[in-house]
């Protein structure tokens, strides 16, 4: 009976919501960025699934239904963009140049570091689109010959890292403007970073949301160019 229940969407959805609710309570109680609710939920659910001997595919039946809501959420990012269109349009040059420089820095630093540390060609290529939102990152990595599942995992890890400490890191190095902070976290950590920025500031969230699309576009066009230049 338990086996059958676990294989229904009810299990995955309930597990995700209950764990996330508890993680949010812990976050409010402890008031520390280290207990970021998304990260704590992911780690807790993975541990629970492994401990209970539950197959990931069983969890995904419910998990995928929650994941589905990401689609309309990305479309909904048009709403804060529209509401803050004047503030954003006034800063179009810093936004576009910031995303362009960040996308270049992402490819060069990720691939360069992996190369210095002796990473294989497939791993180096899989790292290149790590700051790009998952669907765009997958289509990029399939074209350049990396490992798509590895990229998908790295995209999520990059997102969590930026969400956990992005706003704090920006403040530490003297980035104070909400537009610059939102752009930095959105460019580095796509949707997961954007989710965190919406908790910090609405304008920063709107700019981070814009950065998801722009970083995807910039990387799609920059990466083949850089690979040709680097003789890859």
């Amino acid at each position, binding site marked *: 009976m338990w086996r059958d229940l676990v294989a229904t969407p009810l299990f995955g959805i309930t597990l995700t919501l209950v764990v996330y609710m508890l993680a949010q309570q812990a976050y409010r109680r402890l008031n520390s960025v280290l207990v970021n609710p998304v990260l704590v939920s992911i780690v807790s659910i993975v541990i629970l699934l492994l401990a209970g001997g539950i197959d990931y595919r069983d969890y995904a039946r419910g998990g995928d239904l929650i994941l589905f809501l990401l689609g309309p959420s990305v479309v*909904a990012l048009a709403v804060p963009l529209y509401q803050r269109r004047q503030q954003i349009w006034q800063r179009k040059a810093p936004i576009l140049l910031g995303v362009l420089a960040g996308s270049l820095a992402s490819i060069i630093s990720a691939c360069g570091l992996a190369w210095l540390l002796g*990473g294989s060609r497939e791993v180096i290529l899989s790292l290149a689109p790590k700051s790009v939102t998952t669907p765009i990152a997958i289509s990029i990595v399939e074209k350049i010959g990396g490992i798509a599942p590895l990229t998908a995992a790295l995209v999520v890890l990059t997102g969590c*890292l930026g969400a956990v400490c992005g706003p704090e890191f920006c403040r530490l190095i003297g980035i104070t403007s909400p537009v610059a902070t939102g752009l930095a976290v959105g460019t*580095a950590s796509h949707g997961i970073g954007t989710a965190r920025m919406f908790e910090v500031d609405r304008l920063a969230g709107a700019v981070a949301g814009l950065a998801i699309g722009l970083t995807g576009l910039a990387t799609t066009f920059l990466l083949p160019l850089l690979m040709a230049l680097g003789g890859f």
Partner: protein
Amino acid sequence: MVRGFALLLLFQLCGEATSRLLDLPIPGNVMGMGFLLLALLLKIVKLQWLEEAAELLLSRLALFFVPAGVGVMVYGDLIAAEWLPISVATILSTFVVMAVTGKLAQRLEVPETDDVA
């Protein structure tokens, strides 16, 4: 509320259709965001039709990423095989991107501070 969700899904569907028909590298939901922004700017769609649904989704955006993160467990072996270059490159590069983007955008955002200083 129902109208808002219906519109969001409709725009996502249009985005998906365009992305597939034209074989674009941009995913359907990002195309849908672009289409919706255009429709709002052209006053084809009214902001108040969407506000409630958009607010509901965006205020819970973080939750929707949890199942994606759990999915990483399936690829644990891939990461373990070359964990050192992967972890160092991912972590350091993420901070490099935030520093480059944030510093540059902030510098360009207020060019007059340089003149004053």
